[in-house]
């Protein structure tokens, strides 16, 4: 599984960073980006989905391998 923050949509709500800090980080302006090239380590798939489902801007994409 991979996650991706769609840069043009992210407005820095920081929901993903607070729900899944293993998968997302934020830059100095508070905008989110995915860690580890977006590769979701085994066992964290539910956290990835949780982050996606809590983004107010629909800015997180998940692709299943």
């Amino acid at each position, binding site marked *: 599984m991979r996650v991706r923050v769609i840069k043009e949509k992210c407005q820095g709500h*920081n929901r993903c960073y607070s729900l899944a800090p293993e998968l997302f980080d934020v830059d100095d302006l*508070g905008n989110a980006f995915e860690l580890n090239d977006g590769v979701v380590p085994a066992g964290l798939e539910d956290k990835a989905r949780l982050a996606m489902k809590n983004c107010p801007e*629909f800015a997180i994409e998940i692709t299943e391998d």
Partner: protein
Amino acid sequence: MGSIYGPVTDWQNDFDHTDPEYNERIHEIWDDLLNAKKCPVAHTERFGGTWLPMTHEHVREIAYDTDHFTSRAVVVSTVKPDDAPIPPLPAPIGAAPPITSDPPFHQEARRLLLPAFAPKMIEPWEKEVEKICHDLIDAMGDREFIDAAVDYAQHIPVQVIARMLGFPLEDADKFRGFVHLVLEAVNESPEARQAAFESFNEYLDRQIQDHKDNPRDDLTTYLMNAEIMGNKLQDEHVRGTIVLILIAGIDTTWSGIGSSLWHLAGHPIDRGRLVDNPDLVPSATEEFLRAYAPVTMARMVKDDHDFHGCPMQKDDWVLLPFPAANRDPEVFEDADKVIIDREENRHAAFGLGIHRCLGSNLARLEMNVATRVFLQRFPDFEFAQGEQTKWSIGQVRGPRKLPVRVLARRPRP
């Protein structure tokens, strides 16, 4: 002093978000307006013409559409920006940048402030907020009856924002007076508003002068030295941004904390769950933000525009009720239920699009800490019998009076 319009008698055709009944009966009023299905968007002639979209889709569409809707005024009042006695900076800057700014200037003005409010800059405030909360509860002594809004919620953001701006902590009452002026007294006569704004501006000029004489490590000094494209900010820009931080940083969070405690006073099961499991507080806070979102923003129509069949005219106001969007069953399951461990919660309490609340990380921190500490110290409480919750007036909704009876208390850890 009071509204120049008088009370509402016909909500469907003549609604008024500043009528005290609006925030008291907000959910009924929205349902009533949605069921009326006139134009898909409710309309009133008040304030020179005001629209009220209510679905998530419509609110979202307008929030994202900076071509047809301008942010140059975001608080609906009896005075439109072109008629103001002291005209604000022209678009795209506006009176309180960046919230009153439009692209592309908006991005520059916002970029100046974003780092100060990014998560990693806000996290260290947790200890300070915790201390503020415990101190407030200590000051209540062993009173059985307290006011969770007056004695607690209203003080927390004021103390944080005064520290951030480097303003005197003892001016807290003044700040709350300014909040009332900007957000609640919006239906008073233009003359009354002008006089009050003059004294607000004088106060801010004195604080800015004090920072000129004694620069220090705070947001005010930072703004005075900041540059956009190689130029120092205009004085009006500095003052406007301070207005924004002062007003938006206080009233909103005060309302958010108050509404959370209002819910908990009336819902013993939720209260018990959070006392037993404080790790659930952040999730509960998100749900309180969804269900009782404090902030309704506003836009103005740039040029005559047909919005899904509604004939919007240039300079009409458009309210953006994010709290109504948050109750849209198309987007939220069981939208009218408060579920403190709701798993999927894309609420729009902090807005959508480029104007996402700059202080959202700080607001969340304050709400989480305030709820956690309150429950830690008062694990059991209820509404005080025979007393009424008093709700705010206008675009920011929250309890201004919240009398509760403390049923159990614990000492400061």
